[in-house]
């Protein structure tokens, strides 16, 4: 088991290095030249102290200085990548990259990326975790009930609604919810994180935040329900048609035991990767939801970063996304072993 995990971790690392190198090269295509802009800005500041004919020379000098500082004084992508990682020295002979704790600098926010993301990550994780728990609680019950009562009116109704929900792009669901709850019923506020201008403390602050996050939470939960319900139902139906279920029933076990103990254990196997993926997905935030609600989470941060070509921030968040994806794969593989003892993972 330990060896397997070590092997997988090594594999993840290799893929991660490969992918980050590819992504790094890809993002170099984005038009963002920090050294150029900084040199221009400094030249603007010096405007009056330099004669006009020396300005170009001064700019070249400043440009070179900034390029050396940021490590962009070469066109070799491998060198650039190694500098970004922090194993290849900059012009001044020191390494300053990820290994040194430098994840880049956000231009738009004027802050190092690592200091920036804290509150965004927290917001995304709170709302994501809450909605994921709600989604699981609802879909598992609904999925099992539908599978058991397959073909009844209840099942058909849920099937129909979940088909529509599954076919509706999330943003249309959000538009309808915003319209219903904010514009027509006036129950929840449309946007924001807290009452503007308020300075609540303690319980008031928590309640206020809850009030403002309620609608995004409902939307996120509702948007995720349909697809997971469909999958839960399908795998539960498959599980219920297994021979072991017939045997269990023939033994005279209670129907409840048959369903929740025998069938559910079997139905869980295909669901593991979805549940694990869902929980890891909360770190990345929900881009669509957060942009529509102005909810300050990772998704909105990423959206704004792409809109403003905030290069280091995009790079960092995307690396996080890829890392999450790879780790989620590993964890779901490990979970298979726990859920289904027949799967031997220490290959």
């Amino acid at each position: 088991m330990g060896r397997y995990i070590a092997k997988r971790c090594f594999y993840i690392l290799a893929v991660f290095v490969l992918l980050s190198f590819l992504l790094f090269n890809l993002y170099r295509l984005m038009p963002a030249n920090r050294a150029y802009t900084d040199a221009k800005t400094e030249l603007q500041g010096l405007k009056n102290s330099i004669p006009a004919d020396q300005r170009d020379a001064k700019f070249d000098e400043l440009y070179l200085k900034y390029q050396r500082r940021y490590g962009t004084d070469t066109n070799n992508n491998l060198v650039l990548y190694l500098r970004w990682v922090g194993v290849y020295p900059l012009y001044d002979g020191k390494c300053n990259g990820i290994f040194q704790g430098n994840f880049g600098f956000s231009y738009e926010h004027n802050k190092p990326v690592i200091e920036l993301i804290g509150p965004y990550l927290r917001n995304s994780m709170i709302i994501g975790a809450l909605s994921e728990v709600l989604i699981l609680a609802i879909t598992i019950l609904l999925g099992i009930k539908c599978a058991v009562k397959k073909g009844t009116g209840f099942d058909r109704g849920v099937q129909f609604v979940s088909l529509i929900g599954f076919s509706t792009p999330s943003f249309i669901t959000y538009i309808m919810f915003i319209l219903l709850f904010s514009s027509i019923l006036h129950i929840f506020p449309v946007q924001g994180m807290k009452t503007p201008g308020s300075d609540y403390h303690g319980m008031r602050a928590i309640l206020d935040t809850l009030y403002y996050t309620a609608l995004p939470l409902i939307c996120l939960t509702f948007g995720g329900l349909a697809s997971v319900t469909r999958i839960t139902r399908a795998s539960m139906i498959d599980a219920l048609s297994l021979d072991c279920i017939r045997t269990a029933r023939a033994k005279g076990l209670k129907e409840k035991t048959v369903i929740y103990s025998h069938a559910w254990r079997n139905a869980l196997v295909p669901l593991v990767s979805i549940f694990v993926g869902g929980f890891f997905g909360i770190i990345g935030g929900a881009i669509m939801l957060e942009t529509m609600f102005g909810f300050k989470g990772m998704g909105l941060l990423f959206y704004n970063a792409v809109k403003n070509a905030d290069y280091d921030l995009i790079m960092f968040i995307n690396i996080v996304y890829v890392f999450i994806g790879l780790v989620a794969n590993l964890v779901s593989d490990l979970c298979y072993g726990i859920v289904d003892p027949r799967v031997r993972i220490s290959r």
Partner: protein
Amino acid sequence: MAKDNKKPENIFRKLARWFVRFFMGVKYEEKWFFKDQKSDDSVPDDSDLIVSPGKQAFQRFTSRKFAVVSVFVVLIMFAIVFIGPLFMEKYSDSYTEVTLKNLPPNRSMMKVPSELKNDIKMIDSYGPFTVGLSNAGKVYVWGCKKIGASDATVAVPEEVENDKIAMVAAGVDHIIAISETGKIYGWGNDRFGQFGRSENSINSPTIEAMPEELYNNGIDVAHVKKLTCGYQASAILMDDGKVYIWGNKQAYSNMDYFLERENIVDIDFTLNYIVGIDSKRNSIVTGTKGLYAMAKTSIGGETEKMFTFLSGRKIVEITAATSSICMLLDDGSIALSGDFPSDSIDVPVIPEGEQVVDIKAGNYHYTCLTDKGNVYSFGGDHYYQAQVPKNLTGVSAIYAGSFQNYAVDSNGDFMKAWGLKGFLFGTDDVGADIFERVIAGGRITMTVGAVAVIIEVIIGVILGCLAGYYGSWVDILIMRMAEVFSSIPTIPIMMILTSIIAQMSFTTNERLFMIMVILGVLGWPGFASITRAQILVARESEYVTAAQAMGVKERRIAFKHILPNIISVILVSVTLSFAASMQTETSLSFLGFGVNYPQPSWGNMLTRASNATAAKNFWWQWVFTSAILVFTSVCINTIGDTLRDVMDPKSSNDR
């Protein structure tokens, strides 16, 4: 079945028989082609019982009404979005029309109220609604009466209903009427001082408020020569050459020039300028140098300086459209000045002996009436407003406004109307027809979805086949690659890639193609693993072993035995992926990546609905589009689900 005395079959009959056998089965083949060879009815016919798996799946599919309806809906949708654009010859992606912004669904723009039909005194319009006046002095309004998001409406107010009106004119969002006693009424939107003397209109430097004397004392209606309204302004011209003008100065920057004029003989509004002629009648007065200083006789004709063009002739009357002016000269000929839209119909040749007596302008077109009662039309024709109906003779008056024309006979009876009826799905925030954009956008969304899936299938199936067929290190390499690709989150990476290709100099179509390619390249791992798994299963199955034991060639096994078995599974995936790709594209376009304006897609047409206020006030701008998107998606997913059910031999019929 015995066919001993078989006659040589002709080739067409043979082909038809094969066709029937292929599509309808052996049963019908025998029934139709061998009916002369009566078989013994008491013996059960084997061919009735033979059902191939494909046919069984088909039968089970057709037994589900919902799925069959879905297939037809999707086919019809495809037909509409791919054939529909051929019929929209006037459609252009970047079409905008400022006077038709944010209109709700409405088809009554040309519907003259029945009370007015036999008693028409005049009809006028500038924007989405039309105002009519009867000889009895009653005002009627039809078209889109509600203005924009505000509560303002141009429905006739009660005090106007009770008064006897002598003149009426319509602007883009207001109506001005003068009663027979000289009282001036205004209603509609007054945010830019279109009527009345509100606090805002008096104090704002960009608004010229209605003159106080008019507001308080009214006007001498007997001496009013012309009442006309422009975009957000109105003008009254008196017999003695005095002009009263009020309204939005930002819309009409040369308004100040006309405020002090005393010798104007005719006045009208284009979209951005007030134009007039003074008592010299030899040029267009605008107060701006070089504006409408050139004239021509036809839209495509050579332009000449106004002075040399007129060479002594006088301008009798002018009438203005959005960016052009039509002049009636004293020798009875027509002259034009300004710009015309590219799809304009040129000035018709008016037959010898006919004299133009009246010209009315819409927003882009002009309609003229001759003394013989014939009607001719020219200018912008986007809504077919310059297509005079055939056999229209004996007309004694014509009225034109925005995109409509009305012909009236000598009794004042309504004869015929032509032009823009309205918009089935309303218009968007730039004034484009949402119905047309839904069709054009559907073509793009469906093309992106389909091509992306095709690319996914090609890459996925080839790599999946290689992995499944060769096994060992090829399998490991390809499956690891698939894993890496599937661990890249789709939407974020798409956002970055599309913003990168936005920087490169691609044409819109190349950009579109790039989006399809990116979607396809990111989506292949699903197909690869499905194909691989199916091939692994198929290779180990008994029928392949049996075929191998019988000495069937490898290639025949691959194409005749393995491929048909995996194709059904791939088909299900293709259907579901198609819907998923469409959703990814719409989500991206909605966020502002992916397909960008002016190219329509079902996603970027909904962008405006992310604003809750706009979503509520302009519900038609997202309800129809998203309903169609969801409906199409539901149908495609239903087909996919049903296919999966019917092709899975394990699943029972009642599922």
